[in-house]
């Protein structure tokens, strides 16, 4: 597909374009505001962010795949509880596996790993009446996971740098630029600013596509 057709198609189906690009244009954290609790409170360092990311990698796609197979004929009220139940079971195995590999590190995250079980990031699909195919559930699960992991790592890195002057435990600068970044309200502030920057990126990308399309039209 040549660039002109691609640009026109993306613009013509902009909502669809946004929905498919879960990492950047429709990031589950910075655009949709999902998983705010663990990110604002627990993702204070790169290490904690890695733990959260591993947990989501182990839970999100398997939950989505299992529920897409089993809940095809379920009504929304039934799905409301089947989704969290499936994610809770999957989480149990994932949590145990993380404990075996990382020791007490995941346990030190407190309630912020277990609450992923009912977080809209994992279970929000129960509200949709549209049935999801097996392949689509895998693809969408992986897209959402990638979007969350990118946001989580970025956030953890930025917060650790601002609050402690280090990244991954390695000291970069001796000054603490913004000590409040380690607290929950600092997390809300930084996520809010990142959301605004993300919105700016999406708008700039959209404008860039429009200009490109207009350029193609002028040139014929």
């Amino acid at each position: 597909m040549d660039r002109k057709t691609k640009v026109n198609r993306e613009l013509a189906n902009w909502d669809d374009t946004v929905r498919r690009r879960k990492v950047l244009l429709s990031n589950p954290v910075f655009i949709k505001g999902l998983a705010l609790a663990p990110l604002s409170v627990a993702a204070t360092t790169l290490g904690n962010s890695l733990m959260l990311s591993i947990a989501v990698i182990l839970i999100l796609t398997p939950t989505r795949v299992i529920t897409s197979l089993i809940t095809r004929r379920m009504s929304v009220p039934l799905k409301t509880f089947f989704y969290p139940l499936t994610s809770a079971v999957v989480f149990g195995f994932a949590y145990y596996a993380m404990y075996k590999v990382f020791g007490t590190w995941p346990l030190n995250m407190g309630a912020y790993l277990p609450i992923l079980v009912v977080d809209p990031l994992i279970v929000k699909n129960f509200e949709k009446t549209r049935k999801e195919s097996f392949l689509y559930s895998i693809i969408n699960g992986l897209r959402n996971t990638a979007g969350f992991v990118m946001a989580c790592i970025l956030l953890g890195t930025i917060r650790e740098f601002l609050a402690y002057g280090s990244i991954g435990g390695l000291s970069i600068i001796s000054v603490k630029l913004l000590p409040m970044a380690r607290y929950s309200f600092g997390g809300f502030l930084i996520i809010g600013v990142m959301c605004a920057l993300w919105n700016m990126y999406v708008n700039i990308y959209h404008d860039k596509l429009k200009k490109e399309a207009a350029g193609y039209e002028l040139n014929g």
Partner: protein
Amino acid sequence: MNKTSVKIREQSHYDDMLLALLPIILCACVMYSARVLLVCVVAFLTARISDVAMAVIRKQEVDTSDKSSTVAALVFCMMLPVSVPLYIVVVTVAVTVVLGKHAFGGKDVYPFSLAALAMCFAAVNWPNQALAAVTPLTKVSFWSGAAESALSGASQIKAGGLPYVSTINLLLGYHPGAMGSAFILVILSVAVFLLVGKRITWHIPVSFLATCAIIAIVFPRIYGVSRFDSLKLELLSSALIFYAVFMLNEPATTPHNPKAKIVFGVLSGVLTMLFRYFGSYEIGGCFALLLVNATEGFWDRLFSAGGIFENSRSFKAWIAQLGLNKKKAAPVTAGNVEIKKAKKSAARKSADKAAGSADTGNQLLDIISAAEDNIDQVEFTTRTIDVKQALKELEEKQKKEGR
């Protein structure tokens, strides 16, 4: 009172606030050295540059009449010790102006008192530097701010101690503390100037201080002195009077209705004393003010014409006032009512007349229904639909399609 006169009034408010801060800054310079001026100039310039930068980024005209940032920056400075590092002043003022003011929409629409927000931001991030106190009339290094530090009266009370400062020294501000928030006599004189000039009203300061006084008398936390002395120390050794004059009267963040102002003042007083008694920081007033600012609109609605305390209302209407029932609280505009009337009869008749077919009438109804959905979904916009305009657009669309 029309919009223009309100705007002129608010501009004059900030001009007079700047004027009112001058004697306090002068007293601070006398007590704590010329570094006070350096800190004030740095804060002033940072606020101005931030305003200009945001105007450029947002592609708007630079509003030279908007002095809310500069007033807030100077009020913030007066609550800091003279030894505060300049980078703290710059970062705090810049973040406050950009995120606390312009991110919320800019002039007159920000929800939180800028000075209180700045002070809270500095206290949370750099408590040792922002909440320190300097002994007056001692040497202060001009550039680095190195100075002889001491415990302020408020810190001593917080730690369970008793500040040994005479009443006259408390009134003159001759005790360790922030740059400008301790000059009680000067602040009271300035308050009289602002009251006479009607730049502030008595409702909030009086209700705030009265509430603080009652709580200090009824529940004293300073032991070994009489209740009156305890009251005197609570009110005069901290920045309560400074808050009452300079921070609780910001036009953008306080109610306009007089009764609402009194309630606002009382609530501020209660929360301030709660934060001072049980909070982690002695500047409880600033944190309390942020919480009370969040309720400002509610008090105005409650006491305005049509609010619950103006007319007797049923419980359901009161809940609607709280804004909890989103659907029922949706504003009914003339446009909405027009649409509902036009939908069934006039739209169908005129649509059929215009295009001569049921299909066109359905298209028009679709346009109107979609617009209604938008109005219902977004609670606080007041978009209305003009039926005639919708018909015109439909006719133009059909002409383009060649019908």
